[in-house]
């Protein structure tokens, strides 16, 4: 092989392998943050609704601090190579989406759109090609959100909050209707979307139990 080529190739391979190492470090740091958020948010299942806002306050700073991580990614990923490396952090990113949208739902009952999640994670438009929040990862995060809310519907009732399941039901149905508009391939997203149906069914059952036992007051519309 051409001596020149040999050197260039070796340099290029070394660069990639260094880069992979650096990304791995960033992912470890990212993971730690998302795991902290998940740990804190896990308490919603045993927290009375009036204490929830206080709990959320403990999560917010961790979410904000993810901006440091995404900035880190934006610095090390070479221009246009986002898709080359993204599998390494997809899981963490999806968990961050999950945490951000759950926070939002618990705060004001709304769905945080992709662009807001993106800016909440400190992702900047000029990073295009280096670090973005892909639609696919946002959707994965939403599915995790629905999974969690079906669990919350059950536990809220146990804690005596009979209104929550109804609120959740309306919220989740809208998300489900959104997913129904997509043409998915036979991939993970499709499989997880299929499983959403069971979450919705579970939530419906809670709503059914609650309504028939007349435990819930007629609902005030919260969405428009």
């Amino acid at each position, binding site marked *: 092989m051409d001596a020149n080529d040999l050197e260039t190739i070796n340099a290029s391979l070394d660069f990639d392998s260094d880069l992979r190492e650096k990304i791995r470090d960033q992912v470890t740091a990212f993971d730690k943050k998302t795991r902290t958020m998940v740990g804190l948010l896990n308490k919603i299942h045993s927290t009375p609704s009036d204490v929830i806002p206080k709990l959320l306050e403990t999560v917010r700073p961790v979410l904000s601090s993810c901006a440091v991580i995404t900035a880190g990614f934006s610095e090390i990923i070479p221009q246009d190579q986002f898709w080359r490396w993204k599998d390494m952090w997809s899981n963490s990113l999806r968990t961050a989406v999950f945490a951000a949208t759950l926070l939002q739902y618990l705060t004001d009952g709304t769905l945080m759109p992709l662009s807001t999640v993106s800016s909440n994670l400190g992702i900047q438009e000029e990073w295009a090609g280096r670090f973005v929040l892909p639609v696919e990862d946002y959707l994965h995060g939403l599915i995790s959100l629905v999974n969690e809310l079906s669990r919350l519907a059950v536990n809220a009732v146990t804690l005596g909050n009979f209104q929550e399941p109804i609120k959740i*039901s309306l919220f989740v149905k809208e998300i489900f209707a959104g997913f*129904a*508009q997509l*043409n998915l391939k036979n991939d993970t997203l499709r499989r997880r979307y299929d499983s959403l149906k069971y979450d*919705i069914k579970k939530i419906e059952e809670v709503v059914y139990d609650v*309504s028939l036992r007349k435990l819930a007051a007629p*609902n005030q519309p919260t969405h428009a």
Partner: protein
Amino acid sequence: MISVSSTFNAFREELDEHHDRRERLIKASRDITNLSKKTIFLLHRLALDSLTDADDGRRTSAAAKGYANLREVQSLYAGLRNDLAGDRFWRYHQQVSPGLQEYIEALSFTHFLEHRSLICFETVQRSLSDADHVPYLPLTTSDYLLGLSDLTGELMRLAISGIAQRGGRKQAMEICTFVRNCKADFEGFTSHVRDLSKKQAVTSSSLEKIEDAAYAIVLRGSEYDLPPEMLDDIVASTIAQ
């Protein structure tokens, strides 16, 4: 006497033509699969909306949209007519079969939404024929059966996702019976049709999912001594604005 070189030249032309045709059919099959899959997604969307309708109007219009979508697939097959003429169909059957099955799945799903019944062989073959009823390709029993077998998976999805809505419970019960019959009918064919028993296993698991859903419906109505419609009304009034 013909030289070895020139006969092999003729072989080359024949083999190249064969490989090119094979490529063309593979590509067309990918397109057909994609169009059919998209149609199935569309039908799920429309079916979800039409479920609450008392009359069959919207249901029929959903089916109409499905048929319209599939007309594009049919015209693709019309275009492949020559590549599949005579003995060519069986020569390229392996390349054509996956797309065909996906198309039959989509078509039978559309048919189900309109008629709540299984599409018959003749109707599928007719959909793949020109105005003079001359087929673009001969429909085989195995493609027909394998395509229908995939339908049960979509019906399971339809049953489960409709279940939370009014009318969805009745639909789930209907589909449960329908899929049970499909499974029983197909059972006799498994030893004759390759890969059908694998698909029957999928049908079995779909059926179990529907049965679990039907079970849950009965169970949750069982604690109350009121007719299901009245229970539905109470729930609806709780949720409704």
